[in-house]
Structures are given as C-alpha cells and as structure tokens.
C-alpha cells in the first residue's frame, strides 16, 4: 500500500489561478521522490498538500484527494499528521520556534505527545545523527546558517516520521554541505519527497523524479529514465560542469583590495588581496563560513577593513542574499526606480523577465521573482563595480542560464564579482574564478 497517494488534485490559493492541476502521485514507503520544476511550477504547493497545510493552513479551492498513511488530509489537520509527516522548509530562520537547540528539536516531540522520559534521548540521538551533538545547549542565534539547517533536519528526524518532506532544504548550503545534508536526511527508512531547484545533488539519491510545469506533472519516471528525459527535453536541469568562459579583453583596474584583514569578533579575513578589472566577471567561491560575503561587502564598501585598503575607481552596488530586503516600496517598478528613474526601471524589469509585473506589490511576488526584482534594483544603478552575493538562490536552472547570459552581456565597462556556492553557475558566468579557503585564518587561493 502506498504511503502517500495524491489523486487528481487541483488546488488554487485564494483569488489565484490553480497552482496544481489534476496532479496524481504515489509515494511508497522508503522511496525517495524528487520534485523538479521551475519557480512557480507547484512543487512547494504539492509538498504542502502532502503535509496537509494545503488547504488547512492556506485556504483556497481544493479538488481531488490526498491520503497520507491511510488518512485523508481533508479530514485530518496538519497538527494531527505531525509525527507521521515531518517537513523541513526552505528558510531555517522562518521555522525555528524556540531559542535553544535542544529545546527546538524537542518542540515537535512534545507537541505529538512523546513520553517525557523519551524526549531527551530522542533529541540527542537526532542531533548526533545530523552531526551537531555538541550544539544542544547553544542558542539558535549563535550558530551558522548551515548548522541551523541541520537543527531543522534534526527536528524532523527526531519525530521518526513515515514521510519526510524537504522543501529546497539545501538552498543555503555549499556543495559539500548539501551533499552531507542529503546523506543524513536520506539515511533512514522514511519515504522522502524533496523539492529542489539545484538538482545535481538530489538526483543522485532519488529513486523517482517528478517534473512539474504550470502545476501539472509532465514527467513521473524512475531516475535513469528521468535523466534521459531531462537530457533530451530540459537539458538545463542536467547540470554539466563546463570550463570557464574564454578570456576576454579586460580594461583597467576597477577595484583593488590589498592586504585586507577583517574581524567581527573572531578574525574572518587575514591579508587578502584581490583585483577586479573592467569588463570581467569574477566568481568568488569557497565553503560556508570562509569569509566570501565579508570580502564581497568590503569590495562594495558596505564594510571598512580593519587593516589594508580597498580602492574603487567608481561607484559600487551589491546584491545581498536575502531578497526580502529589497521590498521597501508599494509597486515593483517604484522599487527599482528608487535607485534610478521609471523608464530605466521598466527596461531593467524587462531584462530580468519581470515585464508585466510593474504594478504588482513586491510582496506579492514569488521567491524566484523576488530574487529577480532584487537583481534589477542593483543593476539599474549601473555601478562601476557590481557585487552579487549568491544570486542563484531560489532560481531554477533555466533562469540561471539566462542570468549568466544577462550578466555577461551587460558587463560592458563594469567589473562584476559573483559570490556563489553553485559551481556550474560560477563556470557559466565567470571569466575567472577565485576560491577562498577556510583554514585557521582564511586566505585567497
């Protein structure tokens, strides 16, 4: 008997077009199903339907039937499904309830009525399973983003669920971190449904691949068949790491970083030097916590070095990681025009694929659309030095290729520094790659 069964599900959020159309799917116990599809294709909605959050939490029009562990989600609230189903959402900061790691992992166990004596042993086992046994007493505000993502996974695994739902759970991790995450998450007996925009890692672990487009399933096949289908019909989703782009003629130095050191409380950068020239795109890569974002902020002038110098030949602009920070106006075009004028703002919106969204409220945009809006807000300033911090977070592979082309086409007389964990994107966009390594004191390699 299937662990989860979706039968002819059509669902629309209130006052919206259907996000899912006539979707049918089965998940067997122990099976790993990978959901792929562009931003807005319905992946997250399907995950929420399996958790019972659609329609209970979101409301909307629901037709069809979803059954999990023999229970119809129309008659079973998400709180009642908790324990049988566990979900890890995309942004760890938006799902952490309590302040201490151990209490956070215990939260779900307490809610589902686990016997009091069993709670702490289960918590400690889950923390050990995800490799953070020593963090139990730490505050969730003191640990890194990667560690917080592991806390969320531990919270889900501690419940020993029959069905584990992962909604883009590795969006903030580097390649090694994402691989470790999947190793930990997929090591148990639970059926797993993963929604992903970065398919490379998840594809290695999937038994079956489901591809969604416009709310419909266009592919539901075993992994090998799916790989062949993707290679033929959606080649962008089968990431092939290419070499760097051919060297282009570059101009004079646009930004020079010399012997820079920086510390927050602990040292982050020590005697780092970097040169960016007009007309080139440089990818800055390296593991989480190696100081990439700090170096990027120094280049953009958002931080001042404790030692050494940063010299820019003109204005700099920087796209930060969280697109929620770029939503300060009431209309999309006004948001972009904040750094320019409406004519240029609309042209830039068209360039990033948001033509037609000018009059929408920025907060009505999807995550992927917000990423593109944020990009437009910095591109419109036409800076001399452009710095982008993880611009492909939440961006599907097809959009990623478009973004790489856009950045390369717009380089002109500008120097561009792209901080990224996405190796395929780094290769696609950059003329030169600079890796930052994390040792006792980070230095550039």
């Amino acid at each position, binding site marked *: 008997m299937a662990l989860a069964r979706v039968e002819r599900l059509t669902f629309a959020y209130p006052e919206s077009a259907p996000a899912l159309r006539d979707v049918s799917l089965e998940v067997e116990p122990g099976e790993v199903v990978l959901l792929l599809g562009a931003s807005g294709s319905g992946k997250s909605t399907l995950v929420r339907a399996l958790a019972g959050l659609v329609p209970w939490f979101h409301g909307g029009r629901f037709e069809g039937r979803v059954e999990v562990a023999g229970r119809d989600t129309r008659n079973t609230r998400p709180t009642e499904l908790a324990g049988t189903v566990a979900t890890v959402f995309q942004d760890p900061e938006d799902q952490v309830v*309590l302040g201490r790691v151990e*209490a956070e992992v215990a939260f*779900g166990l*307490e809610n589902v009525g686990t016997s009091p004596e069993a*709670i702490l042993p289960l918590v400690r086992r889950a923390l050990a399973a995800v490799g953070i046994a020593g963090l139990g007493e730490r505050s969730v505000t003191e640990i890194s983003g990667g560690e917080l993502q592991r806390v969320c996974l531990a919270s889900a695994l501690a419940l020993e669920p029959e069905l584990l739902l992962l909604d883009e759970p590795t969006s903030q991790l580097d390649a090694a971190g994402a691989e470790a995450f999947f190793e930990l998450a997929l090591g148990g007996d639970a059926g797993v449904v993963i929604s992903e925009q970065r398919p490379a890692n998840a594809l290695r672990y999937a038994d079956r691949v489901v591809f969604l487009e416009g709310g419909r399933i266009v592919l539901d096949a075993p992994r090998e068949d799916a790989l062949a289908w993707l290679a033929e019909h959606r080649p962008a989703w089968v990431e092939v790491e290419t070499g760097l782009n051919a060297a282009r003629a570059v101009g004079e130095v646009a930004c020079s970083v010399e012997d820079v050191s920086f510390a927050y409380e602990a040292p982050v950068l020590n005697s780092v030097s970097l040169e960016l020239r007009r007309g080139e795109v440089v990818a800055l890569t390296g593991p989480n916590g190696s100081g990439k974002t700090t170096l990027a902020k120094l280049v953009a002038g*958002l931080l001042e070095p404790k030692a050494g110098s940063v010299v820019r030949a003109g204005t700099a602009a920087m796209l930060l990681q969280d697109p929620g920070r770029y939503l300060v106006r009431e209309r999309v075009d006004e948001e972009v025009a904040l750094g320019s004028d409406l004519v240029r703002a609309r042209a830039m919106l068209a360039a990033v694929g948001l033509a037609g969204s000018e009059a929408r409220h920025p907060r009505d945009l999807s995550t992927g659309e917000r990423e593109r809006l944020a990009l437009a807000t910095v591109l419109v300033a036409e800076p001399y030095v452009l710095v982008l911090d993880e611009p492909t977070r939440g961006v599907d592979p097809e959009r990623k290729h478009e973004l790489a082309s856009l950045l390369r086409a717009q380089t002109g007389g500008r120097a561009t520094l792209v901080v990224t964990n996405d190796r395929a994107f780094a290769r696609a966009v950059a003329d030169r790659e600079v890796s930052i390594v994390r040792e006792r004191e980070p230095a550039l390699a």
Partner: protein
Amino acid sequence: MRPTAAAILLSGLAVTALVATRLWAVGVIAALLLAVCLRAGRRAKPYLWGTLWSAGFVFILWPLFQSRGYHVLWSGPSIPVFGPLDVTTEELRGAALNALRLAAVGLAFAAYALLLDHDRLLAAATARHSVLAAALATRLVPTFERDARGLVEALRGRGIAPEGLRGHAALLSPLVAGSLERGFSLAEAMESRGFGRAGRTRVPAAPWRPRDQAAVVTAVALVVVGVLWL
C-alpha cells in the same frame, strides 16, 4: 539558577523599584540591574540605549510638567497651559526618582530578555501558550533590529543612504510587513510540527535547588521591605 526563579527575582527588583520612594534605594536597584545586563556584552547595547534614553527623557521633562517645591534653582518663562517653567530641588528629586524607576524596570526586562533561557521558562510554565507568545515577542526585538540593519545595508548596496529621522521612519512599514510575513511562515511551521494538538507532553524539568528557593524568598522580601521601609 532556574529561569523561573531568576524571572521572579527580576520581577521582585522591578516592583521594589516602583514602590520604593527613597532615591538611593531605587538607584542601588538600577545600578545592580545595569551590572547584570552588562554581562550580556554587546547584545545589551540596544536595550541599554532604549532604557537610558527613556530614563533621560523622563529626567529632563519631569520638572517642566510639575509645579511643586519652594527651592527654586532656575526660573524660566511662563508658558500657556504648562505654566511657569521653574525648576525646583523637589522637582529634580522627583525627576531623578521616576527616571531611576523607569530605568530599573527597563533594565529588569533587558536582563530577562538577554540572560534568561526562555525555553526552560516556557517548559516550566502552566500557561504555555501565553509564555510561548511572550518568548516569541521577546525574540522580536533582536530580530527587528537585525532586519532593520539588513534593510539599511541593502539600500546602501543600491547606493541609497537613508538619512535622518524621516528616511529611517520610511523603513518602518517594510519592517513591519517583513515581520508579519515571518510570523506567517513561523505559524505554518508550528502547525506542521503539531503545535496545538491535544495530549501534549513536556521535557521533565530539573528539580528546584536551594538557591532557586532563596531567590524567590529574596524577591518577596524585597517587595515587602520596599513597601514598608524604602
């Protein structure tokens, strides 16, 4: 010390500061609470700024809205509605007392927010839903501060520097909207983790130790002494 005992002791200190009328006693309580808050290091900064500015305002404005005392230190003009803007020794004493009271209450809250383990406080609470709401609200302060910093940083990254009170006030609306969005996501995550389900259990709490009991007795004694003698 158990967070519950520490919270009772902090409440006792705050109540004593409110009921006491001797300036030195309220001053000692405020100084004690300030020393406790400083243990939190840099995290204490926004709380200390907020508390000390508020207390400073009370100290400055209090004498201007009062008309009492005979030992005039400064004679100002007479303003309609407010009357004469004289400052007397008695008014200054009243201003200092109320500023210190406000500082003590603010610092007690700061110590609660900065140094107590809210999770353990929650675990010991009978009214769990209310205490969870209070714990989440307490976390709102640093989250709000971080979001505000993030918004300003993002604007600077676009080459726009918000200036003055008006420039920063314009960020209030996106800050609140972002906070509501976060709240919605958190509520969804809580529902998916079984919050509100019947038959909830809790991690067994550690037993009360003598120093926890001593803290509670001290808190009650402080309030009694404050009412009767301070």
